[in-house]
Structures are given as structure tokens and as C-alpha cells.
């Protein structure tokens, strides 16, 4: 099959970007979307032109590296699918496809389709962990965890940190990403001890990074390749509310700060 691509090209973070059209000729429906881009890049390289820069690594939908907006939808908009797992059998011969990087101020473009998502790492560093050192952990079965709690934690923990939620959101909100980690750790007894500190710190860092607010349109859930549920945002709001109230109460009982 043949496709027409309109691809965002941008030399670096400082340069202006623009769309450039390319033809992908003789590509196969069994190819993945990224393999189709590989093919185009091979031709560009042979012609001496610079290939389209895009991020990818595992190419099996789990590392969260690949990140592109395809025809206006993060990862191409197929349910539960990353760009690397999207296959051309879902496109039509002769179709024109628009390919853009994630667009959000906290994710500056580094080159072409590659963005800097280090803001997500900073949010994780603000509290997305359980404060235990290596060694001295009690036996894994010392503390039973209800199967339902473990399953709920896993549902949230499945997040791959790709940033599609931010790219899809009209406010560039990172709430789904943050909510997934907050909910994962709050669901387990091991994470409960510092749940308040965690949610306050992660939300503050999220705000400082310049992500927008959540207006519950649900576009994040719709494009999430791991189908992380919007319910987790509600859960995080509850966590956050409780933490604010309890922290205020704690400050008052200590005589304020």
C-alpha cells in the first residue's frame, strides 16, 4: 500500500518547526507504524536527507518510549495500543496521515517527533515511591494483601509513563499519570504510611512543571495505551483532599507553621 505522510520536522528545541510531506510507497499492511517510518527513513538516508527523528525502544508496547500524535490522536487512537504496536492494516491505501510530536509546554520538542518528558521523572522523584532502603524487609507473606487491593494497585501500576494522557488533554494535564502512581501506592499497605506526603508533593511538582488542570473530559483515558481508568483521578482527588485537611489539622494542633 501507499501512504502520504505529513510529518512535523523541527531541527532542535530552539528552531521553528514545520510539516513536510513524504510518500511511503509499497509498504505492507503487516508492518507496524514505526516499521513504516523506518522504511521512509531508509529512503531518506539513501537520498542524503536527514531521517525523521522519533523515539522508540522496546517496540512491544511496554517501555513507553514511543510517542507521536497520529492523525490528531496520541498513539493513533486505537484502544490500548502504543504507536509501536499500531499496524498498517488499520489504515487505507492512499490515506494521508498527519504525524506530530506530543504537544504540551512541559514536554518541549527536542527534535522532530522527540520530546523531553523529564517532567514526569521529576514528579516521580517528588514522592512516587515507598521510603524503604534495601535490606531488612519483612517476609513477603508477613502482611497479607487482599487480592482486590493487589489487583487495583496493578491496574494503576500498569502505566508506562508515555505521556499520551498529557498530549491528548486540552489542558495538557498530567493528572492521569500522577493519579496512577498515587493510587497504586495508596492501595497497598506498604504505601499507606506516607500517602499524604506523597500526594501533596507529587501534585505540587506537577503544578510547578506547568501541567494544566483536569477538567474531566476523559480524553486521557481514551488514548491511554494501558487503559488506565479515569476513576484513579477521582481517587487521587480524594487522597489529595484528605491530605490537605489532615495536614491543616496537624499544623493547627502543632500551633501552626
Amino acid at each position: 500500500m501507499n501512504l502520504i505522510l505529513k510529518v512535523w520536522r523541527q531541527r532542535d528545541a530552539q528552531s521553528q518547526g514545520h510539516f513536510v510531506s513524504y510518500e511511503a510507497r509499497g509498504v505492507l499492511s503487516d508492518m507496524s507504524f514505526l516499521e513504516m517510518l523506518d522504511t521512509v527513513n531508509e529512503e531518506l538516508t539513501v537520498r542524503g536527507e536527514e531521517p525523521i527523528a522519533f523515539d522508540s525502544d522496546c517496540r512491544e508496547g511496554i517501555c513507553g518510549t514511543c510517542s507521536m500524535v497520529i492523525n490528531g490522536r496520541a498513539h493513533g487512537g486505537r484502544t490500548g495500543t502504543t504507536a509501536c504496536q499500531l499496524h498498517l492494516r488499520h489504515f487505507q491505501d492512499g490515506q494521508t496521515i498527519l504525524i506530530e510530536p506530543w504537544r504540551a509546554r512541559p514536554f518541549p520538542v527536542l527534535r522532530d517527533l522527540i520530546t523531553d518528558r523529564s517532567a514526569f521523572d521529576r514528579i516521580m522523584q517528588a514522592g512516587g515511591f515507598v521510603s524503604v532502603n534495601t535490606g531488612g524487609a519483612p517476609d513477603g507473606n508477613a502482611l497479607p494483601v487482599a487480592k482486590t487491593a493487589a489487583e487495583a494497585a496493578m491496574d494503576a501500576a500498569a502505566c508506562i509513563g508515555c505521556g499520551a494522557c498529557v498530549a491528548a488533554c486540552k489542558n495538557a494535564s498530567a493528572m492521569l499519570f500522577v493519579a496512577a502512581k498515587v493510587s497504586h501506592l495508596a492501595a497497598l499497605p506498604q504505601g499507606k504510611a506516607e500517602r499524604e506526603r506523597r500526594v501533596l508533593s507529587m501534585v505540587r511538582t506537577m503544578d510547578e512543571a506547568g501541567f494544566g488542570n483536569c477538567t474531566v473530559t476523559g480524553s486521557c483515558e481514551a488514548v491511554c495505551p494501558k487503559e488506565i481508568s479515569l476513576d484513579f483521578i477521582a481517587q487521587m482527588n480524594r487522597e489529595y483532599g484528605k491530605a490537605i485537611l489532615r495536614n491543616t489539622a496537624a499544623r493547627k494542633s502543632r500551633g501552626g507553621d
Partner: protein
Amino acid sequence: MKLDAKIPAGPLAQKWDQHRFALKLINPANKRKHDILVLGTGLAGASAAATLAELGYNVKAFCYQDSPRRAHSIAAQGGINAAKNYQNDGDSVYRLFYDTVKGGDFRAREANVYRLAQVSVNIIDQCVAQGVPFAREYGGLLANRSFGGAQVSRTFYARGQTGQQLLLGAYQALCRQITAGKVTMYPRTEMLDLVVVNGHARGIIARDLVTGAVSAHAGDAVVMATGGYSNVFYLSTNARGCNVTATWRAYKKGAAFANPCYTQIHPTCIPVSGEHQSKLTLMSESLRNDGRVWAPKKKGDTRAPGDIPEAERDYYLERKYPSFGNLAPRDISSRAAKEVCDEGRGAGPGGRGVYLDFAGAIQRLGEAAVRERYGNLFDMYEKITGENAYRTPMRIYPAVHYSMGGLWVDYNLMSTVPGLFVLGEANFSDHGANRLGASALMQGLADGYFVVPYTIGDYLATAKQPQAAASQPEFQQAIAAVAETTRRLLAVNGKRTVNWFHKQLGSLLWEKCGMARDEKGLEAALREIPALRAEFWKDVKVTGRNEELNQTLEYAGRVADFLEFAELLCLDARHRRESCGGHFRTEFQTADGEALRDDEHFAYVAAWEFAGAGKPPILNKEPLVYEEVHMSARSYK
């Protein structure tokens, strides 16, 4: 080169305890005076970086990905072994140790494997404490499943995403230390050379993959956890970025490379669909718990699998290995699949595939139960092939998956370059000639959480090297050498793409040094690889400049190293005139086609030493002495 494995004296079960006592300590106030460089942030690297930082060392951690959370450990699906015996089915540290040594076809170092089995139990505890959401039973206790090469259920898992969850646990521990100011993280940074001063590893040269800036980093020790080299075959289950560059460049600076010919071909991957294929996708081995592997009995049978009656199906693993059946180890299952396809009984386009059938399991357990256990794997299969495996059997074929070989390390995980520690898949020590399923995660975390944090202190306390500084001539020379390689790559300006060379190399290796190897093929490969390498340096096209984000340049450097490394891989495969584990020489097999080991001549680790450019490498041998285990012919019948 003298190889001293530094295996502690004493009974096997007490070696590690006694050794830990014998190791010198660094007092807490002095730990903060030591800088440690950690390369790679997968399970081994992230766990080491976090733990060393918790102990008080200053850590600089480097990864080529945009975030440490994306290392390829994340793709491990099935699980992690631990000798917890929670299922009361007869497991023990000794049994896990024995299974691993046997699974490795008696080519692993006994003392290391025993320690691995010992600390396996601590890993699970640690990960639970971090909040890793392992699968649980209704009573709230941890669930287990069984894996290839074992007859007990000792594998812990988090759906089909165990690697992801364990890596996120280690990444989160790392995040905590970054916030504590004990780890400085360098993402999108690639190590391009090891700096050796006065015979000790004292730093690295790294390239910032966004700006192209090349810089020197000095430290008191270097911890390399940069994964395996399966991508030398072009098509593998590894991530696109996985490469041999860090270990190869360390080899050229004096670190011996051990057993490169031990490569693992995983039996259950999605078959190749065409020339355009950029990677292969693995379907977790855990599927073999409930799926039955078969091929048509008749050659060239093109009927749809559902139309082939039971009597005309050959459940060849159950037939050949009745006691392990579909859970035969990976090397054996892979070769068995190749055999039936070579006989012309393969399924699917090109005849390179066999069926993995869940009809029986669905009938026995119901579709819902199968979905709960493997749902994400079935989804993944459907995404790639467009087929529904609940209705029609999966088609699978073996693919390159893991490298058991790696840099040689002693019991302390230190390479032949003092101060260079090598962890996880990047070293050679624990899996012998074949790794068992769910053991890679175990080894990565064992090395990072529970081994190197102890052994590195002993090195720092005894090495007594002067402080290294990036201004030293050794660093400046290494920077110049890296710049020169980059300049040469950009200057060729030929006609072929980097990808073209990588593909050529991959198909050459797969054909001549893949699942089955022989003298003639290896001789041919050893002639063709240098020729391809010469062509690469004459005709490769690398676009762009160094001073920018340049993926072609990154890739070119990695392929250049693969083109050198491939020769060592074939050299090792040619010299090892026996079959063991993943290394199958067709000349050496039993009457019924099983691997035929030669313990009299080959019960050693082959540690290759770089002798200079253009010179043949020097073979050093570490004899494998089994104090506890009796070496026997491996049987899963």
C-alpha cells in the same frame, strides 16, 4: 592474564556468609567520599545505583533512554524465581541452585549460582516492601506459577508485566535517592569508553545524545549494567537500542569477555512476518503452563489448525520429554521447534512456526480463567498478527532473546579490570550455557541489591588508588579517541544505510551461528564478518553532525561495535567443540539429537582477552570445578 575467581573457601552453603564477614567495610563517614559511576538503569543498574546511594556513596547513573524507567528489563513478562517454598511443593535454596546449574548445562560457576539462590528470597521481600503489586491469592498471600526447567511453582509474577513492575520498584528507589541528592542521573547519555588509570577503572567517556557533547566522568569505581548483546543478530526480542558498546569497549580496555557463544533462543516468539521486521516479540514462556505445543504430523499440511484432527497432531514436546512436557527448558524447546520446521512440518507462511494451543485449557478452565492469566499476552498477539488466539492456536517460533555470555567477573562481580564491576545480563556468571525462565530478573536484582553493595566496599577499602580527575591525560586521550571514531563515521559518506549493514550481519549470524552451528558455517562467518566490516567503513552513510541529536550516528557506533563483536562470538562458537545449552554444534549430538557435552575438554569458562587491533584474541580458561553437584547428562525426559 590470570583469572582468579576468588571463590571463598568453605562449604558451599556458608561461602557467602563467611565471605561477607571477610569483606572489608567502609565506614559511613567515608562512604560519602567515594564516587561510583553506574552505567545502565535496568534491574541491575537501578537497584545497584539506589542501594549504593542508600549506603552513602555518591552515585552518577547513566542511561541511553530518556528515562531510567524505560530500560529493557521492563519488557520481561513472566516472572521472577525465588526459593520461598510458599507452595510447600518441595522447593528449597538447594533445589533452585541445582535447577539453575543443571538448566545451565553445567557451565555456570557453582558458588555464584548458590549465592543467587540464597538471596532470591530477599529479593521478593524487598520488592513487596517497595509496593510491587505481585499477584496474590484470595487469602492475601503471594501467588506462584511454574516455569520451564522446574517441577516446582516458585515463580512470582505481576500479571504479564513482572519486569515492568520490578523495574518500576527499582526506578522508584532510584528516584528517592535522586531527590535525596545521592544520585545524579544522566538520561539520554551513552557511555562510549572506559577510562583505565594505573590499571584500574576510574571513569568513563559519555556522549550527551541531545547535544552531542562528549564529556569525561571520573569516579572510584565503575558499575556496568548495560545488558546483553542479542541485537548482534539484528532480529531479537531486545529493544532497538540494546547494544554491546559498553561491554565491548570495556573489553578493548582489558576486561575479558566470557563465553560469548552462549546465546539464548527463546522458543515462544511471534514468527517473522517479512523483510521489514524491526524486532521480534516474545510471548511469555508462562504460556506453556497451559498451552500445548504441536505441529502437524504430515509434511506440508496447509489445513487450518482447527481442521487438523487430534490424531494428526504431533505434541512433540510431550512426546519427547514426557516428564517436563511443554515446560522443557528453552534451548531444548527451541531446537525441537526448529527440527519439526526443518522436517517441513512447520505452520504458517514460510513454514517457520509451530502451534501453541489453548483449546484444552479453555475447555478445562473456561475462557475467563485463561483471560485472567494471560489476557494481555493474547491481546498483544492479536495486535501484531491480527489473530484471535482464544479461537485459533497461536503460531510461535524461536527468536534470539538473551545472552548468557558477557564480561568475565569474579565472585565479587569484578571484571579483570580492577574497579570495573559488571552486573546482570552484562556479566557471564550465573546462567552457564542456558538460562532458565524467570531467572534473569532474579539475577539482575540479586547483583544490584544484594551483591555489589557489599563487594564494592571491599574493593574501595583495599585498592587505595589516588583520586581520579577528568583532567588527567588518560581521560583526555579517551575523549580524543571517541571524537576520532565519530569523525570517521561521519566522514565515510557512502551509499548504504547503517540498518542495511546491521541486517546483513544479523542474517549472517542467524544462519551460521544461530540455533545450530557447525565448523564449516563458522569458518565462513569468520571470513564474511571482516569483509562486511571493511565494507561498512568504506560505504556506510551517516547523515547529520555530531553536535546535535543524531540517531543515525548513535546507531552507527553501535553497529560498528557489533561488527567487531560478532567475530569474537563466532570464534568462541568455533573453538567450543561440544554442544551445551544454547550452543548447539551439529557435529556433537547424541543419537536422538540431544546436545552432547564434552566435560573432559570443555568444562571451563572461555574468557577472551583483547590483544590489540587486528590481532587474534587470547583465550584464557577458568576451569569449572563442581564441589557439590555431580555433572551429569541433562535429561528432561
